[in-house]
């Protein structure tokens, strides 16, 4: 099977459009996931049993079921309950809820890693709860989180092909479309794979660099 370079070049613009949508969904999804993760991590450490149990249940559910099926439910089943969200929002929410569950565990580990002494000092200095969190604990927890967050960001990026099943016109969907119309598979999927690598490898190197710098 020969590789038609001219054809491959001609489909780059269309694939690039898909890539833009991918990046858009990932960035928004990641922001949502970080927020969800933080909220859930704090809920896990809450003094109230009800909140702890509820967040544990959430984590258990979202981490033991596949993202793809979760997306199907959000996209196809919710409208039957009257809630119809546009495809892009569904994708962002789906990614956010799913990865939020994983990031929550990472946050919890990082927060627990903040030395007990810090908490005690904050109480001794009569800081109230929100100041303690905002100015003492979280800043210290976030630093070791960076490489982990980086991994999840890249992971999310690579999971975006799943969004094609809920009709989001991202990169994989674009490649599939081209292949479906022209019946040439080599070029669309190869260019797509290259585009994936072109984003994930530099991002991974970037995070490794940041991690090394922050240890100086």
């Amino acid at each position, binding site marked *: 099977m020969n590789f038609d370079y001219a054809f491959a070049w001609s489909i780059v613009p269309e694939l690039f459009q898909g890539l833009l949508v991918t990046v858009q969904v990932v960035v928004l999804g990641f922001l949502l996931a970080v927020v969800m993760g933080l909220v859930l991590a704090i809920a896990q450490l809450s003094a109230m049993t009800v909140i702890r149990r509820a967040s544990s249940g959430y984590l258990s559910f979202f981490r033991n079921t596949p993202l793809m099926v979760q997306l199907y439910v959000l996209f*196809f089943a919710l*409208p039957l309950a009257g809630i*119809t969200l*546009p*495809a892009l929002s569904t994708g962002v929410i789906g990614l956010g809820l799913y990865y939020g569950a994983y990031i929550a565990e990472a946050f919890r580990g990082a927060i627990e890693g903040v030395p007990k002494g810090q908490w005690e000092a904050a109480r001794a200095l009569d800081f109230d709860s929100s100041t303690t969190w905002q100015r003492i604990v979280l800043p210290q927890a976030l630093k070791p989180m960076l490489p982990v967050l980086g991994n999840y960001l890249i992971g999310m990026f690579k999971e975006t092909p799943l969004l094609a*099943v809920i*009709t989001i*016109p991202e990169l994989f*969907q674009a490649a*599939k*479309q081209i*292949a*479906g*119309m*022209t*019946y040439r*598979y080599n070029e669309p999927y190869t260019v797509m794979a290259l585009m994936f690598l072109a984003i994930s490898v530099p991002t991974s190197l970037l995070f490794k660099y940041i991690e090394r710098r922050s240890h100086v």
Partner: protein
Amino acid sequence: MKGLKLLSLSVALGSALLLNAVFSVSAMAGLLEKGRSQGLTAGIANEQPYAYIGTDGKVTGANVEILQAILAPLGINKIETPITEFGSLVPGLAAGRFDLIGAGLFINTARCKVIGYSNPVTRSGGAFIVKAGNPLNLHSLKDVAANGKARLATQPGSNQVQEAKDSGIATGNVVLFDKDTEALAALEAGRVDVVYFPDAEIIGLLKKANSPTIERALPFNQIPDAEGKPTWNYHAYGLPKNDPEFTQAFNEQLAKLRASGELLKILQKYGYTENELPPADITAEQRCNR
């Protein structure tokens, strides 16, 4: 030690998998002999009324019955029907994953380059499903293109995608669903404004949905050809490109089935009419080289 045992087990399994892979590369034997001795596999996409799984779990549909009627006189009685998604049918046949395509497939030039076809079995036009009352007044693909905001749902890899593009509908307004039932669900949820599929499929979808909130858009103006006359699309069975003996035998049986009136009888069971029969002398080659 446990580790070594696991290692040798996996090596054995690995080589078994590899051997399995190697032997799948075998060249395609003549389908007539294969069909008579082992049976054939016909890829389908679980779509009404062509080839689908009924509520009793058995495969049924116009295409399936006709296929059985064509292959039985040739001595081929065992037909398996693996389900795949529509977009994977053509590449699947091209890669030899099944012996032929039993689903409803139009003949178009791009596909002809990759697979072979039987002679046309039925012809159809397209049809729309819209919300009851047809609020956007859509009666043709051109109408959808003219209304810059109307979103059309169809299937990836289908002829409809190209037709939509050729009619001037913006790519962003064409939403693709792997399954026709998903497209209909999207219409009901308000994600799209119109669902576009061949008329037989639309009839099947509407019957299954049985919902007062949606309707078929009538009248519907087919895509006009250069002289302004409505064009038809022709359904045929996808066959491997390199087995002319099988293709010829297949087409002979198809012609006999039609001449005897059996073909129309089976079709009528699934809602087709005589109008959907193609002219008797039309061949796959003609449609491929259009």
